[in-house]
Every structure is written in structure tokens, then in C-alpha cells.
């Protein structure tokens, strides 16, 4: 009777238990918690941007010269820009574009990058491996920012093309990461057994090898959210990303830079916002890495 109950209860319990253990490992470092809270907060602000900020209409081409260039105050905690728009409201909308960019780029990049890496790593020594990895080398041979800038500028500069350009530059990192993992995993015992019982290649790739690559991929994704947002802000800083009057964080820094140092708040707060968002994803990523590393011990 007890054995029966135990066998019924155990699987669920074990899942909860491992979740709890992972949470414990993650939360041991207070920095990870700070990262998680930052990311959640920014996501909340971004998702509810039309409802949270005091002046949502200031996100676009709104003009109010009467309240232009005001330093931070109670009504405008981060001040107003030269045409009277509330900087804080614009930053909240800026988070939207930043997160959107990160999420879309990663959704475009991770699946093909991972699949190519799996295939190349599993088919060691084949022409397929050589082909995939050499193409990867080519894309990794130039700093991503340069090619992303070039592609966006040649197409029409806007948010969509900026995301497209960054995605084109980003997939090789996943290919290389997963390639390294799968080329070691392919000689593991469980892979050999799957081959022996006649499992198909796709079964081996996606059901045997891929699940063992999940934690490094997730860690990299969390860190990459930060890096993609950073590069995205660089693109909009140059004028090749989010186009005014839409509030891109990089665009806001560039626009405000003209009025430095007297009206420092116009570009200082958006710059700070970039730092906070990238820092948040970095701390979260480091926390995840520590958590997964502890899992393997």
C-alpha cells in the first residue's frame, strides 16, 4: 500500500523537489535575484507601457512647448525633452522596442543556429559538417555590429531591418555553441545505444542530444538578450534602428546628446535605462549558469 502510494506520488514530488532545489541554487546569489527582479520589472513596464507611464501619448510625435526642457520634478521624474515630452514615459516605451528586438532576434536565430550546430556536430568529418562550420566561420569573421550596420543601412533603416540584420549576424554563435556540445555528446553511451536500436537520426538529434544542450542554450539566450539589446541601441544611436519619433533608447541618447551638459536628463536617463536592462539580463544569465553548473556536480 505504501509502496503504491509512493510510486504514485513520487514523480510529481520529485519535479517540485528539483524545482525547489534549482530555485535554492539560483537564489543563493543575491545578484541573480536582482537580475530576475529587474528583468521582470522591465518586462512588466514594457508590456503595460500604454497603461503604466503618466503620459503615454508622449511616446510619439507629441509636442508641448510650454513644458519643454524641464529638469526632473514630481510631475516629470526624469524631466522632459526639448519639445516637452516626458522622458520617463518614453523610456517605458523604449523598453518595449528593446525587448521586442531581443525576443524577435532570438526567436529568429536560435532554432536555425541550434539545428545547424546539432547536425554539424553529429555528422563529424562529413562534407555537411565542413560546409556548415566554414560558413559559420565566415559570419564570425567580422564583428557583428559592423555587418549589422552595413545591412541595415543598405536596406531601409528601421526597426524591422535592424532586427533582420542582427539576426543574420547572430545565428553562428548558437551553431558554434551547439556544435561543440553535440560533437562531444555524439560518442556518449546513450547515443550509441540509440543508434544500436535503430533510432532515426532526427530522433537522436532532437530527443537524445538536444535535451542535453538545453541549459547552455538557455544561459546563452539570457545573456544574449542583453547583447542584442546593446547592439540594437547602438544601431538606433547611429540612426539606423528605431526611427524617430518612436522612442528607441539609443535614439533618445543620441537626440539628447546635442543638449548636453545643460539638459543632461534627456540622454542620461535613457542611457541609464540601457545599462539597467543589459545588466538585468546579464545577472539573470550568470545566475542561470551557476544554477546549471551546480546541477551537473
Amino acid at each position, binding site marked *: 500500500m505504501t509502496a503504491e502510494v509512493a510510486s504514485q506520488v513520487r514523480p510529481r514530488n520529485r519535479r517540485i523537489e528539483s524545482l525547489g532545489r534549482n530555485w535554492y541554487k539560483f537564489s543563493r546569489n543575491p545578484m541573480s535575484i536582482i537580475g530576475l527582479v529587474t528583468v521582470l520589472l522591465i518586462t512588466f513596464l514594457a508590456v503595460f507601457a500604454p497603461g503604466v507611464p503618466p503620459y503615454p501619448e508622449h511616446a510619439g510625435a507629441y509636442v508641448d512647448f510650454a513644458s519643454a526642457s524641464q529638469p526632473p520634478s514630481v510631475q516629470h521624474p526624469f524631466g522632459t525633452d526639448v519639445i516637452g515630452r516626458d522622458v520617463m514615459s518614453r523610456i517605458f516605451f523604449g523598453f518595449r522596442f528593446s525587448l521586442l528586438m531581443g525576443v524577435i532576434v532570438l526567436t529568429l536565430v536560435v532554432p536555425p543556429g541550434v539545428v545547424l550546430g546539432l547536425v554539424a556536430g553529429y555528422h563529424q568529418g562529413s562534407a555537411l559538417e565542413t560546409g556548415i562550420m*566554414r*560558413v559559420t*566561420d*565566415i*559570419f564570425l*569573421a*567580422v*564583428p*557583428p*555590429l*559592423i*555587418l549589422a*550596420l*552595413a*545591412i541595415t*543601412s*543598405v*536596406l*531601409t533603416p528601421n526597426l524591422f531591418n535592424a532586427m533582420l540584420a542582427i539576426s543574420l549576424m547572430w545565428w553562428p554563435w548558437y551553431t558554434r555553441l551547439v556544435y561543440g556540445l553535440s560533437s562531444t555528446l555524439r560518442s556518449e553511451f546513450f547515443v550509441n545505444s540509440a543508434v544500436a536500436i535503430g533510432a532515426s537520426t532526427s530522433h537522436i538529434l532532437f530527443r537524445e542530444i538536444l535535451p542535453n544542450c538545453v541549459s547552455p542554450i538557455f544561459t546563452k539566450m539570457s545573456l544574449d538578450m*542583453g547583447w542584442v539589446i*546593446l547592439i540594437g*541601441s*547602438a544601431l538606433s*544611436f*547611429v*540612426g*539606423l534602428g528605431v526611427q524617430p519619433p518612436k522612442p528607441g533608447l*539609443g535614439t533618445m*541618447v543620441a537626440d539628447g*546628446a546635442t543638449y*548636453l*551638459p545643460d539638459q*543632461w536628463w534627456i*540622454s542620461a536617463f535613457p*542611457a541609464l535605462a*540601457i*545599462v539597467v536592462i*543589459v*545588466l538585468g539580463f*546579464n545577472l539573470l544569465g550568470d545566475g542561470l549558469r551557476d544554477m546549471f553548473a551546480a546541477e551537473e556536480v
Partner: protein
Amino acid sequence: MSLLSFLGRRAVHSIFVLFGLSIVIFVISRIMPGDPARMAVGARAPQWVVDNLREQMHLDEPLYAQYYYWLTDALQGDFGISLVTRRPVADDIKEFFPATLELALFAGVIMGTGGILLGTLSARHKDKWADNVVRIISYLGVVTPSFVFAILFLLLFGMTLEWMPTMGRLSLDIPRPPRVTGLMTVDSLLAGNPRAFFDSIWHLILPALALAMGGLAQEARITRSTMSDNLSKDYVASGRSLGIPENVMMGSFLLKPSLIPTISILGLDFAATMGNAFLVEMIFIWPGLSRYGINAMLRKDLNAIAAVILVLGVVFILVNIIVDLVVAQLDPRIRLAPGRGE
């Protein structure tokens, strides 16, 4: 494996990568919507001018033929005419590249020395206040975009405190040394002009520092983590038991093996510097290749864009080869291992 065969393999691999890169660049410069010939001459030029140019640029021929013409010209150092400066792109590159190289090299030196020093300091005093300060600095350094650092330094040291120059490579009242290498510091030394030398270094500091911050932070983090890993090794314990002072221990025994990961990352960061220079050069009005490249991009100057990317790609590949050589020099296991080096 001998050094020569290592170099040979790297060279073959690099040529392949460059060839691939040239295809990517060519495709980028041809995906632009619209007629490149019409773009080049402007909207009001008569149709026969456009037609002539189309023929000159081989635009009516298939894409692979266009690529062939472009590549053979590029291999001979002919990148066409810049639409912005109306000069051969190759001349522009010769003029602007040394300024970027000088800036990036300076930034590289700051990244390397600063990062290794801070990382060593941090590992030496692990979990003490010095370590914590370095860790906070390196976190902020990694997550802050270089253009934010550039603006910050420009404001603080350039405009508010007025300690540092805020633009260009040399003060206006100092006569320019004759151009030999294009590196302002080297040229002023060659001309025997110490005033220009110190002035050019003075101009380099802020932009180079802004450019170096990200890499510096990264190097500090990596040096710290490898060093503190190595500190727990047996040979360190036996060294301590022999009474070797901690500082000697760190300097003579630990530094070399701990530097290998740092140097690999330093190479990548140096290359990233070339990308970030695009933003920093804009802010400090630095007459370099990156600023030229940005202007080319903003005006869709295709010949210039393609050439700038190709040049930066070559630099990146060269840096990677150098890094591999240095790492092989530091680590005999890599140098002697057969068959490695892919």
C-alpha cells in the same frame, strides 16, 4: 606540430574565410533596392549617363559575372570611386585607416594591461573590498555601451573639468608632422617633435578609454576567475609551503598560465573594438576609417561600405592568427599537440 605548418593551415583557412566574406559583402552591396547606377549619378542625370554607367559597372551582366569583376578589381586594390568623397575608395582607406588602427591599438593596450592588472588585484584580494570594487566596475564596464562611455568621458573630462581635448587627433596650434605611417604618435616621433607626440597621446586617451572599457572589464573578469582557480592548485600550495612570498608567487608562477584565456578573449575584444570604434569615432570626431564607414553607410555609398568591411575583416583575421600564435607560445601543450589548430 611545427609553427610553420600551423601558420600554413591558418593561412589557407583565412583565405577561405576572406573569400566567403567577400561574397557576403558583395551580396550586401547588391541587395539594395533600386538601381546602383541611378543612385550614383543622382535623380536628375539623363538616362544615357545612367546607361553608360550601368555598362561600366557591368550591371547588365549576371550576378556571378559582376562578382568576378568586383573581386578582381578589389584584389588589385581597386574598390571603385566613393560617392561621398568622389575619390578612389582605396585612397580614402589609406588616409583614414591609420587613425582607427592607432586608436584601436591604444585601446587594446589599455584593455590588456588594465584588465590583467585589475583581475590580478582582484584574485589576490579575493572577497575583500578591492575585489568587490573591481567586480562592480567590471560588471558596469561590460553592460554599458561604448557610446555611453564616450559621451560620459567627453562631458566629464572634456567639457566640465576641461582636462582633456574633446575632438580630433592633434591640437590645432600644433603643426602636423609629415605623414609617414599615418599613426600620429609614430609620425611625430619620426619628425623629432615631442610636443606633437605628447599632444597626440593626450588626444588618444579619452576615445581609447571609452573604447577599451568593455574589453577591460571582460579581461578583468576572466583573469580573476582563471587566477583564483589556479590559486587553489597543488603547485601553489607547495610553493606557499616553501615560503615563497604571495606576490612573487602571483607574478612569476601564476600569471603566465592564467593569461591564456584572457589573451584569447583579448583578441576577440580587440576585434569588437573595430566595431565599436564606429560609435566612438563619431562622438570624438576622430578622422578614422569607422567614421568614414558610418558616413558611407548613412549615405549608401556602396563601394566604400564594401571596402571598409573587407578591410576590417582582414584585420580581424590577422588579429586572430596573432592571438593563436601568442597562445601557442604561452602554452606548450597547444604548440606540441598534433593535429590541433583547426
